[in-house]
């Protein structure tokens, strides 16, 4: 079928803020869909609250609504734009859920909007456990047995059918708490009773345990003519019981015979047909009993998913793009395969390499939570690596994670007592792969490790090969010989082929490379520098070769330059002689470095491509738009390490490399790359270093006469106390080099300081601890600017709504500032110009200021793209990252026509989204260490409405009526009066603890009294549990000694009750509620906002 002509306007819904389980893969899919459908001539209306997405760039849709993704807001968009169709399958679970809500409530019928891709019954059938199970049984497939129980008796009846071990999952508990596996009836009864008590609706799901079974996924596509193809098969190295998002996975499937694979393929095809997904992609998961081969269906996602993004990058087949085209009527055989250009998209990609995906976690940010990996996803990002063998891909993947590993490294873990290994192996955890290595190195058998981990022996054997080979390389005799040969080779003494020793060395090193060993790993083994390894092996003729990802295992010639490195005999890449610029991406997502940086990298690629440069992208994150093969002219899917980047550099010889867009990742490489002769364009690595080094930076500030908060540096814990005492508590402490505020804390007294110095960091002369005076109650301001070396233009000034001391990534902020006076704004500008000049910035710069008592302090300068660049770009309608890329390539701001600051007539509010519900037991308090995973944007001509939108987009439902609990520290008691008064005027009732209530009463306000925790009942906890409170304003006294307040916060988060912990935050919330009560919320597209500029 050709494309449909009966529709011309399509609504696409994005996935909103980045959260665990829903990251930038949906920007990738949404961007592809927007592009594909625009290319077909459709008008696109887009709703997505996440400003850091490429899809919300005004060029990708005709009307871009950065508005909350809630049914009522999307209805406003529908009413205004009147699209004829809604494509619900590309924006993750968020878009799917909202679409279902709109369909079920009749909104879609009311406005005659057709669901395309997947219809309502199909979505319901796939999403509803009972309906899905019924459908599977109907088509003769097996599912794990399961049932719902509301009482102990029901649960006992169920387990008779299900048998042991049985999984107990209480419904709606935080992070799946209260669940578990029962192996006998006694355990079972206990867990059932506990689970029923914990579940707010007293409901348990009892399931047959398939824990330890092999886990597989198929990515399936179907078109309107009922053609079904499998795009990619994925095998989880970690067995059932660990969420696929938390598992190391491999594509394609490694341990199934064709008979078994085809059976699974047949099942997948039956499933997509039975569920009735009309067109598009689905992800289907299977579990296989390793002893019998019995296959059961676990679940199906009737939409593109994280796995489909991975599958797209793993195969080169753009699932989301094709899904979008299928949704408007094309069939698979009518769409060309971009990669080969000569064959149609109706085929099954075949690959001739191995793809490994490894998750990246952030448990260090959520101390106190259980780090066991379970069926609930906890990772915040992932790296993908492509290699010629599993071993090579795995080791590349491990170094791609950028967690300090350079492959399957030796860890201090090896010192772990042997007796502890079994539990480390059997309880899934973040470092399990290294425990496996430790076990192998100590001679534990594959069979034994398999018994503990249930990881297929095939993978364990491959790990063993790595371990054994490392031992071969490290044998004293070999070690000496190889070291000698490497050093000789550096000096150009190359052992001739005839020399047996040289041949052995070359062979061993070649094999090391084929096993994925990095130069750094080798440098550890041979105790020489990484540079010696590099030069030595190059001297011996061992270099990385590049091969193409082509969907067809070389059967057809590939048009698309999408490459990976592997140690082999042939290099396929033919560099062009065009002027080239290489852009280093941000690697796997982590807290503090995610989609915002990918956004900047993509912009750089698009802008420079448009200027006629050949753009080369290097990145290892499969979720991103930057790793889409048509974002840049050339894509290298490679780890962002010095070795891997240099390999590409030597191959391509670009005239410039951009390191300031990918966050900390490329910046960490900048100096080493420069020393290796790589031309870094933009602000020089030395100047970047000047901003990061405390002493050098102080000199910069002194030179231009700016102030920092008083501070000192401690090289030992003994030094810390007198420094802190001299500065006066509270102080902010942090290690000298920090990423995303890692291990940064506000400490309020010496006891806490000592605790910090002993537990969190090890201060030494090489790694001093920085101690800053914490400016309490200061206003924090973020400024993003661009400079061409001469002229600096401010992109935006953002005023934080929270006070200084909360990481800027975790703060709500507003652009333009809402409380600063013109004079302050002018000063901030002047300071920023001076800083840009002093640091010789060419490109982007972000400055954080604190304003206290009319004094402006410089907290931090980052002469690189900041997390707020996409937000600011969308707030002012200027693509700052694009301009910066062109500035780095040599243009001036005058040439680019950006010489004047933009002053929007509307307010843009940015609000963070936190993953606390995934980490029960962790500290939910905000501080200088960033904890949010993503952000949303609210735009409106009125600040309160913009704030209300941002809150809504974060998923907080600000109440319009009901009860507000107020408990504030003494210092805030005066400020709370006005807020409380306003709440009463707006019809709210107040609840307060004794102290606050007294103050309220004195000011003529009645409040329902609750006891402080531990002083009697009821307490606010009881109110929260009874859903008898709708909003909480609780300003903690700051220090960590107040577990009660933390508990309030955690309970509020669990029960979805909005909570504000600062006075400015509370004030903004109350005004926002006022705006909501007035009910005059409207939606406006970005394009319309920009028309007012």
């Amino acid at each position, binding site marked *: 079928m050709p494309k449909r002509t009966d529709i011309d306007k399509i609504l696409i819904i994005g996935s909103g803020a980045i959260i665990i389980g829903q990251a930038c893969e949906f920007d990738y899919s949404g961007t592809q869909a927007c592009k594909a459908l625009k290319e077909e001539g459709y008008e696109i209306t887009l709703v997505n609250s996440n400003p850091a997405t490429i899809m919300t760039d005004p060029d990708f849709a005709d009307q871009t609504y950065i508005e909350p993704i809630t049914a009522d807001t999307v209805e406003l968009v529908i009413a205004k734009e009147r699209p004829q169709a809604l494509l619900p399958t590309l924006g993750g679970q968020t878009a799917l859920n909202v679409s279902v809500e709109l369909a079920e409530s009749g909104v879609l019928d009311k406005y005659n909007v057709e669901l395309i891709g997947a219809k309502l019954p199909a979505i319901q059938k796939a999403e509803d456990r009972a309906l899905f199970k019924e459908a599977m049984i109907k088509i003769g497939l097996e599912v794990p047995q399961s049932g719902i129980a509301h009482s102990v008796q029901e649960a006992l009846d169920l387990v008779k059918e299900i048998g042991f071990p049985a999984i107990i999952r209480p419904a709606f508990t935080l992070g799946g708490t209260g669940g578990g596996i029962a192996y006998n009836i006694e355990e079972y009864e206990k867990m059932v009773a506990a689970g029923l008590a914990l579940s707010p609706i007293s409901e348990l799901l009892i399931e047959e345990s398939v824990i330890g079974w092999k886990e597989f996924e198929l990515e399936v596509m179907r078109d309107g003519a009922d053609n079904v193809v499998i795009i990619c*098969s994925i095998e989880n190295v970690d067995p059932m019981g660990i969420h696929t998002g938390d598992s190391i996975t491999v594509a394609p499937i490694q341990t199934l015979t064709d008979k078994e694979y085809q059976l699974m393929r047949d099942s997948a095809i039956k499933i997509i047909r039975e569920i009735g997904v009309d067109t598009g992609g689905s992800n289907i998961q299977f579990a296989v009993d390793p002893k019998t081969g019995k296959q059961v269906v676990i679940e199906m996602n009737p939409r593109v998913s994280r796995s489909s993004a991975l599958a797209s990058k793993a195969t080169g087949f753009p699932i989301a793009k094709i899904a979008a085209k299928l949704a408007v009527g094309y069939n698979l*055989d009518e769409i060309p395969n971009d990669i080969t250009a000569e064959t149609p998209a109706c085929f*099954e990609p075949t690959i*001739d390499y191995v793809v490994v995906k490894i998750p990246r976690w952030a448990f260090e940010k959520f101390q106190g939570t259980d780090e066991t990996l379970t069926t609930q996803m906890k990772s915040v990002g992932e790296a993908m690596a492509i290699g*010629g063998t599993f071993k090579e891909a795995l080791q590349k993947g491990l170094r791609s994670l950028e967690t300090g590993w350079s492959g399957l490294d030796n860890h201090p873990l090896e010192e772990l007592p042997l007796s502890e290994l079994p539990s480390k192996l059997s309880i899934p955890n973040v470092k399990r792969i290294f425990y496996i290595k430790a076990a192998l190195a100590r001679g534990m058998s594959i069979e034994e490790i398999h018994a503990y981990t249930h990881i297929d022996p095939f993978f364990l054997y491959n790990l063993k090969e790595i371990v054994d080979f490392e031992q071969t390389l490290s044998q004293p005799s070999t070690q000496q010989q190889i070291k000698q040969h490497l050093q000789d080779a550096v000096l150009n003494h190359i052992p001739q082929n005839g020399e047996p020793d040289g041949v052995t060395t070359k062979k061993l090193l070649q094999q090391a490379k084929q096993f994925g060993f990095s130069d750094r790993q080798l440098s550890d083994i041979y105790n020489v520098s990484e540079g010696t390894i590099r030069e030595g092996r190059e001297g011996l003729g061992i270099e990385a070769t590049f091969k193409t990802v082509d969907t067809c295992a070389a059967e*057809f010639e590939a048009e698309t330059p999408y490459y990976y490195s592997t140690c082999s005999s042939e290099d396929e890449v033919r560099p062009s002689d065009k002027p080239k610029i290489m852009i280093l991406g941000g690697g796997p997502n982590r807290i503090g470095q995610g989609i915002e940086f990918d956004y900047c990298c993509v912009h750089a690629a698009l802008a420079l491509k448009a200027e006629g440069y050949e753009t080369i992208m290097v990145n290892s994150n499969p979720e991103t738009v930057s790793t889409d093969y048509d974002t840049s002219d050339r894509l290298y899917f490679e780890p962002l390490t010095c070795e891997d980047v240099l390999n590409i550099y030597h191959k391509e010889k670009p005239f410039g490399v951009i390191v300031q867009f990918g966050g900390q990742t490329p910046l960490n490489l900048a100096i080493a790359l420069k020393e290796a002769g790589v031309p870094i364009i933009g602000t020089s690595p030395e100047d970047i270093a000047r901003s990061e080094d405390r002493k050098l930076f102080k000199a910069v500030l002194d030179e231009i006469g700016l102030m920092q908060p008083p501070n000192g540096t401690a090289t030992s814990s003994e030094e810390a106390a007198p420094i802190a005492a001299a500065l006066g508590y509270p102080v902010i402490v942090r290690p000298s080099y920090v990423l995303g505020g890692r291990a940064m804390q506000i400490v309020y007294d010496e006891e806490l300081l000592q605790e910090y110095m002993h537990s969190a960091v090890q201060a030494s002369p090489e790694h001093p601890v920085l101690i800053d005076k914490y400016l309490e109650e200061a206003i924090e301001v973020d400024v993003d600017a661009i400079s061409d070396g001469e002229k600096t233009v401010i992109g935006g000034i953002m005023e934080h709504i929270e006070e200084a001391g909360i990481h800027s990534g975790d703060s709500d902020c507003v652009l333009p500032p809402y409380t600063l006076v013109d004079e302050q704004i002018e000063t901030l500008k002047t300071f920023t110009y001076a800083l840009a000049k002093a640091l010789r910035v060419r490109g982007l710069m972000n400055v954080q200021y604190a304003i206290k008592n009319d004094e402006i302090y410089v907290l931090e300068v980052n002469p690189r793209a900041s997390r707020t660049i996409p937000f600011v770009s969308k707030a002012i309608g200027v693509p700052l990252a694009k301009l910066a890329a062109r500035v780095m390539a040599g243009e001036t701001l005058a040439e680019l026509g950006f010489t004047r600051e933009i002053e929007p007539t509307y307010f843009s509010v940015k609000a963070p989204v936190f993953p606390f519900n995934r980490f029960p037991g962790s500290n939910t308090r905000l501080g200088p260490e960033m904890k949010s995973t993503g952000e949303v944007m609210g735009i409106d001509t009125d600040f309160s409405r913009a704030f209300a939108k941002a809150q809504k987009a974060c998923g907080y439902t600000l109440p319009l009526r009901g009860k507000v609990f107020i408990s504030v520290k003494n210092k805030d008691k005066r400020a709370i009066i006005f807020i409380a008064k306003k709440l009463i005027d707006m019809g709210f009732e107040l609840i307060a603890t004794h102290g606050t209530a007294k103050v309220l009463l004195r000011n003529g306000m009645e409040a329902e009294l609750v006891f402080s925790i531990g002083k009697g009942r009821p307490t606010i906890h009881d109110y929260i549990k009874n859903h008898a409170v709708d909003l909480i304003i609780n300003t903690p006294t700051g220090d960590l000694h107040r577990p009660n307040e933390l508990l309030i916060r955690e309970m509020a988060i669990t029960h979805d009750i909005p909570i504000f912990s600062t006075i400015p935050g509370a004030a903004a919330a109350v005004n926002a509620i006022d705006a909501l009560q007035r009910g005059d919320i409207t939606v406006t597209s970005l394009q319309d906002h920009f028309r007012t500029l």
Partner: protein
Amino acid sequence: MKAILALADGTVFEGEQFGATGETAGEVVFNTSMTGYQEVLTDPSYKGQIVTMTYPLIGNYGCNEADVESIGPQVEGFVVREYSAYHSNWRSKWSLDTYLAEHGIIGIQGIDTRALTRRLRVHGVMNGCLSTEDPNPESLVAKAKAWHGLVGWDLVQRVTCPNPYAWQHQENNNVDPKYRVVALDFGIKYNILRQLTEHGCEVQVVPAQTTAEEILAAEPDGVFLSNGPGDPMPVDYAIETIQGLMGKKPLFGICLGHQLLGLALGGKTFKLKFGHRGANQPVKHLETDRVEITSQNHGFCVDIDSLPNSVDITHINLNDDTLEGIQHREYPIFSVQYHPEASPGPHDATYLFSRFTEMMDF
């Protein structure tokens, strides 16, 4: 042990031996299936060929008794990037190394199979020599050059059964035999026989040189023309047999059977540059407009323009528009170039076996 694969164009790949040792020559081809190496190895259509798997890890799930397409491996040699010494699967019985060694098949691993595949794609399939005995690359290249090649060689003789036999189905089969089918064995894959049985056929397998008269004397309900190796042109006796059966019995041909039918109908065949070997070939069924993902293994092809008016084209390869299936306009005769029996590969085209039984019903 070192092993060397030398191509007739002078390219030499050095790797490690696995399986058997010795020396062998053959046409070097590549297969892009990611699973199913045991089925590939045992497919008689690979007679005369040294097969390279494009998927780099081979041997992972070992070998078993069930996943065979003939009595044993048929390839001349086997080329992989990384042979997995560890085999992991609940059905695995032997390592691939043991399996190949026992059947005298030389394997080479540790070579850049993608470089080899690209060479074959660009320059076409080539003759090659694989050896663990001769360490001299030049002499091996010379041997590769000297090898006679597949064109004009009747390989069917080497794989057909010596005597007729009745196919004994090994697996549980609840279908009562309804049709009596004679299968002409040009190198038949077991899975065709399994499929026919599962579709209610009682199958008598006969040698390739069986004549039309002999077949007709057995009074079958239908005749099946099997797959097989090499060039169809020299298999003239089979062409004659097919001509003697046309219009008399329903005929169903697969792969070489399809090519022989094409020749019997007066068409021509030609050699493809590097063939179709894999499990992901898209074929369009022109009657329904549906696309089937098919398993394929052929180096020769019926020229679409040479077909007489008496046949309709039913299936086309979407990758290169070559002929994939025909149907006679008058007689109950049809054939496909690809492998509906799969094994290895997708089951999308299993319906063709029902089509055959429907024809016999008629």
